[in-house]
C-alpha cells in the first residue's frame, strides 16, 4: 500500500428499533449519536463493519483523519463580514 487512506464515517440515522447487532457495530465503530463523525483506516475489517450498517451511515474516503475540533470547525459558519473601519479612524 502506497498511502494510507481513511474512511470518514458519519452516522445519519440512529439504530433505534434495529437488531442489537447493529447497535453493537455502531458502538464498535465509535458512533454514539446521530451526525457523529469518526475516522478509521481503510481495512477489510472496517469495510465489513460499514457494510453491516450501510443503511445508517454516510461514508467518504479521505486522505487524513481530522481531529474532533476540525470536524466541529467545518460546521461553524463563515462570519460573512469584517470590520473595515472603526469609529474615529481616518477613512
Amino acid at each position, binding site marked *: 500500500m502506497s498511502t494510507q487512506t481513511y474512511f470518514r464515517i458519519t452516522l445519519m440515522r440512529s439504530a433505534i428499533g434495529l437488531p442489537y447487532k447493529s447497535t453493537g457495530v455502531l458502538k464498535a465503530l465509535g458512533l454514539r449519536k446521530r451526525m457523529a463523525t469518526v475516522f478509521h483506516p481503510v481495512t477489510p475489517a472496517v469495510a465489513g463493519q460499514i457494510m453491516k450498517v450501510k443503511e445508517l451511515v*454516510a461514508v467518504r474516503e479521505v486522505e487524513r483523519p481530522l481531529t474532533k475540533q476540525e470536524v466541529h*470547525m467545518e460546521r461553524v*459558519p*463563515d*462570519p460573512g*463580514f469584517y*470590520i473595515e473601519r472603526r469609529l474615529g479612524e481616518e477613512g
Partner: protein
Amino acid sequence: MRPHSVLRAALDIRWTPSSQIPPTFLLPWRAQLHQSAHSHQFQTELPAQPSSQPPPSIPIPSPIPSTRPAAAPASPSSMPLPRSSGKPLVLSKSLQQLLPHLSAQKPHYISAHIHRFPYLLTQGDTLRLPFHMHGVSPGDVLRLNRASLLGSRDYTLKAGTNSTENYDGKRTGEPNYLDDRLFECRVRVVGVDSGPMVEEIKTKRRQRKEKHVRSKHRYTVLRVMEVKVKGLEELERGAEQLILQ
C-alpha cells in the same frame, strides 16, 4: 429594459388585455416581489424591447468552492478572510458580456450572508440583526463579503448551486458564494436595539412555587451605506490576477 417584455419577445407570448399580469413563474425574482403593484405601469409606459437583449439571469458557470482556513477565527477580525485572495478571478464569456449591464443599472440589491443566514439588502436599508453582534460599536463600518445573489432591476447574478456528492456535506456545508471581489457592500453599525422584557412563569407539578424568568434581548442595528457591483474596468484595475475566458 423590462424583464417580462423581453420574455414576451423571446417567448412570443401574447397577453390579452384582460390578463395584464403575467404568470409569476415567467417573471424574474425581483419582478415577482412587486408585480401586483407595478405590472400595469409596465404595460402602459414602456416600449417593447428588441428580442436580442440578454436574458435577465446571468449564471456563473464555475462557482468558487468555499474554502475555509484551518484555524478560522471565531471572533470577527479586522482583516478579511483570505478566501479568494490566492485564486485568480475567472470571468466567463457571458459574465464579461453581461456584467457591464448589471453594474451600470442602479440601484443594486444583494443577498448577503452573515453567519450563513441570508439578508436581502439594498442601499439605505436599515437591518436589525436577530442577534447582538459582539466586538462592534456604533459608528463602525463593516464590509460584507459573502453574497449569494447580486442584482438590479433586470439582471441577476447568482452563485451556482451546491453540487456536493457526499450526503453529510449537504447538511453541514457552506452555501456557494459569489467572489467577493465582484462587489462592495458596506454597512454602518447604527446602534443596539432591545426587545421587550419577556417574563415567563415556570411551574412544576404539585407545587405552588412559580419561578419568574425574565429575558431581554439586544439586537444590533445596521444601515446599508453602499451596495456596488464592480464593472469590468474596475476589476481589471483592482485585481492582480484576472482570467478572461
